[in-house]
């Protein structure tokens, strides 16, 4: 770092030297160019040490130049936008970027936690399983806070994420994953055929390896060919190119998950732009052209900064015009590695030695050796030497052991086809001896794997394979044939021999760099009997880090196989699972966070209630007015008490629009309802309503509500608020699946009607100021449980139901929902003389408990109609859903918990729902449990807390005393068992 970008090459690469970008790493200011990644910019500035490792805090640099990077994890940005564990190799440089190394203390160069490395003999594979077993008490006090802090990655942001994320759907005929040579050729073929094509590329720039290699296609430099291909694709109407978009998962039915990093490459997202977008892409055909990942070799010190994959060295040289070092040693067992030596020499680097583990290489490969490089065949690197940076390598050559000074060691053990996405959904891995690696066998429905991802390792073969996949795929879908196409490109030598592990050397040899899994960990697991690949993975954590072992997995299998003297496929291979790249929770949530986590349903009087200062409560998806505080009221109990007493003494109204409402029509409507409810509706007269109970087929109560008959062939069914959707679905099931022969039509009208319940002795007089002339509300015209179609507020068609939940004279008035707020306002005027009050769900609940009506707390899925005191409603004359199983022994046995009322013996004692009943004197344990308090309220009229509960043989225990025991809140109240109805049991108030 004597000068800015000392390692930048004078020419070449796809960086814009006219656009310098300033950035900092651990607070040190540096400069890179537009087109750089953070990794290439750091290398250009001579930064080799990027982080400390997960477990041993070993110094680490860059292994790769792409998304497979295990080492170079950094924290980006600050504060609420701080993002840990980001790969420097995939971060596009932007002006003002702030990056920090992680997992070090106090600083990257002097990391005291690297003591972990000295303790390494104490931290073997399975350390957690062996050590943190006991004593249990130490878990939270010692192990978690101290030990886990030392072993870890970056720090999460410390505030709410200020950015936005969203989700979107896309559909196409042909999805192409990856825009390297095979992907571009496939997209060109499918696009020219006229198919709708989506081309996803994780990188910001399309071209894949074409950007890294010095090759030609059809007489053009490969990157120029790529640019022209992209230009043509951009001009095709059916083709959509999605850069910065990583396909992360393959799901059933041709659905793919993809993450678009929309503005990650900018300091902050511009106004109204999202940070990331999660795509669900539905594709008829998919071409997986996700390339290959180079495989390292395990040898002592192979994690040292300066040890880099050979292909990555070419990427830094050719794409970013950065020399990752001054003096190179190449260690390879593949033909491909030699091209790194050639590229380095072309860029002016000194190539000290080429070390190939093979005894012989083809002449064409040998010709790649730069002048001045010593070639060692049948030789190996025993150890990478140095400290925080590579200083040299120790060789085991035919000429004996020797040391060579070098600051860059390029390693190639061959290439692994990257078919993780195919493996998500069915593809198996098949051993390919010529690759010394696994290739996919089969693919998910609709997918083909093309190019290097299926083991085609030369440019000419990748292009031809991609084109063929695109042409065949689109032709299968009925698009015009585009025929075969020959590309003029090199068929580079791609021979490789197995080279997994070099024994010897003092330093640790790593297999999984991100999770710090060493060769000795793998061998220890093998000795301890973790023989299957899946067990090895879980025991050693191999491949379980954020990089999913993209560089380490096959290496570990090779080492295991070599140790056993068995073929690699006999060891097995672990399955890949989504997500193939890390996906932020924010992206999965999209817009559905905070207040928009789920949609909110608003009642027709919501804005009106808001204007009156109502306090709202969530009831399922609904927001309902809970109570309406008046000036001077100090707590909710006072407000609710006032609302209740106003209704009981004069008049009040409540929005009950949230009830489910279902219009049931047809000649068989009555018969249909008879089969759904335990009681009978076919006998209900037109103009009358009846309370009904519906069971589940297993005999327990599903729901209750009133149903009105509007015409001989038309009913209006109501359900509870909570079960509205479920009951409608159940009715559709019964109609379409069980009894399709019935002539009945069902439609939800829940949102059609605003429904206000007007209750109290003055309800009728109040309504006279609302209904239009000619509407008769007298008991003769509209008796209790009577229903009429009337008009209100000067000509608005309405329905009026004389129904009471409160026990008072009450009318439910339904108007088209848009008029709900107007109706509320009109009721306030009409009832002003009587002191009318709106009331909320609290007062509604108090009054229903006073009357002993069941609610959701009592219909809890475990109660029968008999348990709720409604046995006599069950018709014996017909079949209905739940009838047979309601009569099974367990549901009719004596001693079931049944509905009763409860009153505290001590005046003023508070009851709490959830308290359990115990016989007086019985010890408080579960064996003595006699039931549960389901609903409680303070009754202002009675001046006491009252409760409903389910008590063992309750109805036969009236007058007895039980304890209501509530250990959670410290409640222990003696209560008397009473009838569930506390007020007006004969119902006189209903008939005013």
């Amino acid at each position: 770092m004597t000068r800015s970008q000392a390692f930048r090459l004078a020419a070449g690469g796809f960086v814009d030297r006219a656009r310098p970008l300033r950035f900092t790493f651990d607070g040190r200011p540096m400069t890179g160019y537009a087109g750089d990644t953070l990794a290439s910019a750091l290398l250009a500035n001579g930064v080799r040490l990027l982080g400390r490792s997960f477990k041993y805090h070993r110094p680490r640099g860059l292994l790769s130049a792409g998304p497979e990077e295990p080492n170079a994890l950094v924290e980006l940005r600050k504060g609420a936008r701080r993002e840990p564990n980001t790969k420097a190799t995939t971060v596009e440089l932007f002006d003002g970027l702030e990056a920090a190394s992680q997992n070090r203390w106090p600083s990257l160069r002097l990391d005291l936690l690297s003591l972990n490395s000295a303790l390494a003999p104490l931290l073997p594979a399975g350390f957690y399983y062996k050590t943190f077993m006991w004593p249990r008490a130490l878990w939270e006090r010692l192990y978690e806070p101290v030990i886990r802090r030392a072993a870890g990655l970056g720090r999460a942001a410390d505030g709410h994420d200020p950015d936005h994320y969203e989700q979107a759907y896309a559909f196409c005929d042909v999805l192409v994953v990856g825009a390297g040579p095979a992907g571009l050729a496939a997209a060109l073929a499918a696009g020219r055929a006229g198919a709708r094509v989506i081309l996803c590329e994780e990188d910001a720039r399309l071209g894949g390896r074409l950007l890294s290699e010095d090759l030609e296609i059809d007489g053009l430099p490969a990157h120029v060919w790529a640019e022209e291909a992209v230009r043509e694709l951009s001009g095709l109407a059916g083709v959509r190119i999605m850069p910065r978009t990583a396909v992360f998962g393959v799901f059933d039915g041709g659905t793919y998950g993809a993450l678009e990093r929309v503005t990650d490459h900018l300091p902050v997202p511009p106004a109204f732009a999202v940070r990331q977008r999660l795509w669900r892409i539905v594709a008829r055909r998919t071409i997986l052209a996700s390339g290959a990942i180079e495989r390292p070799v395990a040898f002592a010190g192979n994690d040292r900064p300066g040890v880099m994959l050979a292909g990555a060295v070419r990427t830094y040289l050719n794409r970013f015009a950065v020399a990752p070092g001054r003096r190179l040693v190449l260690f390879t067992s593949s033909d491909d590695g030699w091209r790194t030596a050639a590229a380095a020499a072309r860029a002016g680097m000194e190539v000290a030695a080429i070390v190939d583990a093979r005894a012989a290489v083809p002449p064409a490969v040998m010709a790649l050796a730069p002048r001045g490089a010593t070639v060692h065949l049948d030789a190996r690197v025993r150890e990478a030497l140095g400290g925080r940076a590579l200083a040299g390598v120790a060789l085991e050559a035919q000429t004996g052991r020797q040391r060579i000074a070098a600051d860059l060691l390029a390693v190639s053990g061959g290439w692994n086809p990257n078919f993780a996405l195919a493996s998500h959904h069915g593809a198996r891995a098949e051993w390919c001896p010529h690759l010394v690696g696994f290739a996919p066998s089969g693919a998910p429905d609709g997918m083909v794997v093309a190019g290097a991802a299926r083991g085609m390792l030369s440019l000419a073969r990748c292009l031809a394979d991609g084109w063929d996949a695109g042409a065949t795929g689109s032709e299968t879908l009925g698009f015009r044939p585009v025929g075969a196409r020959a590309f003029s490109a090199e068929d580079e030598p791609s021979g490789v021999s197995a080279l997994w592990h070099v024994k010897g050397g003092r330093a640790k040899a790593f297999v999984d760099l991100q999770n710090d899994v060493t060769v000795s960990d793998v061998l220890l697991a093998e000795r301890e009997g973790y023989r299957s690949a899946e067990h090895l993975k879980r025991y050693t954590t191999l491949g379980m880090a954020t990089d999913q072992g993209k560089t380490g997995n096959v290496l570990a299998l090779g080492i295991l196989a070599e140790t056993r003297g068995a073929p690699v496929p006999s060891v097995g291979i672990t399955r890949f699972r989504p997500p193939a790249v890390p996906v932020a929770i924010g992206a999965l949530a999209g817009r559905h966070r905070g207040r928009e986590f789920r949609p909110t349903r608003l009642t027709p009087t919501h804005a009106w209630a808001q204007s009156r200062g109502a306090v709202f409560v969530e009831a399922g998806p609904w927001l309902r007015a809970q109570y309406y505080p008046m000036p001077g009221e100090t707590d909710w109990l006072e407000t609710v008490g006032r609302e209740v007493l106003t209704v009981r003494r004069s008049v009040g109204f409540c929005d009950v629009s949230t009830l489910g409402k279902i219009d049931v029509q047809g000649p068989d409507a009555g018969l249909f309802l008879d089969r759904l409810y335990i009681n009978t509706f076919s006998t209900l007269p037109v103009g009358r309503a009846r309370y009904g109970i519906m069971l589940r087929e297993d005999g327990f109560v599903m729901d209750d509500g009133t149903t009105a008959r509007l015409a001989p062939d038309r009913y209006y069914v109501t359900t509870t608020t909570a079960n509205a959707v479920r009951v409608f679905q159940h009715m559709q099931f019964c109609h379409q699946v069980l009894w399709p022969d019935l002539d009945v039509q069902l439609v939800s009208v829940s949102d059609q009607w605003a429904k206000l319940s007007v209750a109290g002795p003055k309800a009728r007089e109040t309504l006279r100021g609302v209904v239009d002339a000619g509407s008769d509300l007298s008991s003769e015209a509209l008796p209790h449980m009577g229903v009429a179609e009337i008009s209100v507020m000067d000509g608005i068609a309405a329905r009026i139901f004389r129904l009471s939940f409160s026990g008072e004279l009450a009318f439910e008035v339904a108007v088209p929902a848009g008029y709900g707020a107007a109706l509320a306002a009109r009721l306030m005027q009409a009832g002003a003389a009587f002191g009318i009050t709106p009331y909320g769900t609290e007062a509604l609940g108090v009054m229903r408990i006073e009357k002993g009506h069941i609610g959701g707390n009592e219909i809890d899925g475990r109660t029968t109609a008999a348990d709720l005191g409604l046995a006599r409603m069950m018709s014996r004359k017909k079949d209905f859903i739940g009838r047979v199983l309601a009569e099974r022994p367990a549901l009719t046995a004596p001693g079931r918990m049944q509905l009763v009322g409860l009153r505290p013996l001590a005046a003023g004692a508070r009851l709490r729902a959830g308290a359990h009943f115990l016989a007086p004197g019985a010890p408080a344990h579960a064996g003595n449990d006699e039931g549960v308090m389901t609903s409680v309220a303070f009754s202002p009229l009675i001046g006491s807390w009252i409760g409903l509960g389910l008590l063992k043989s309750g109805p036969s225990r009236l007058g007895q005393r039980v304890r209501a025991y509530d250990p959670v809140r410290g409640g222990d109240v003696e209560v008397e068992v009473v009838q569930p109805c506390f007020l007006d049991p004969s119902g006189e108030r209903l008939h005013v």
Partner: protein
Amino acid sequence: MSEPMSPAAPESSGLEGRLVPGRHGNASGPAGVTLHLCPPRALASVMARRGALEAAVRGVKAGFGLDLPSAPRRVAADATAFAWSGPGQWLAMTTGQTPGAFEQALRKALGASASVVDQSGGRLILRLAGPAARAVLAKTIPLDVHPRAFGPGDAASTLAGHIGVQLWQLDEAPTYEIAVMRSYAASLAQFLLDNSVEFGVEVSGAPPQPP
């Protein structure tokens, strides 16, 4: 539209203050989409009775001059339209009659061949149009609205986020109408606005009524 239902009582959508007229989001260039709440129109569910599908089709043809679709399509003539909403089910709509009169007209045309239920109060209809409308819908519903897959006259019931909607395309602009249960309309409007701000959205009052 003139809705002579009530001179006295005001009708409210519940979206007052939630779907505010004006330009929202990205302010550069012309708005990518426009979003309006359609004025109230008469709506009704029409459900053919058992074995009476053909009679219902004849009734609508005779009464309204329209061929009831048997697939997810919407047919329209003059002020009246029918959108398929399920086998033997349609959402009927008109801008030419009050809800009560429309219900009566439907009953008269259909007789015993179908059940008719007024839904005028139960749904609100939002109209989304403009060059970015497809991009907004891609973020809103899990349906393919590419011109090759969904065009004028096509209709569908689906989910917008977690909200059930029925939508149809009116023209090539493209213009879509999205019918939503009234209680969910505020949440849907917010979702559509969130999905539109990237492109710039112009919210206006009453748009002209389509056929």
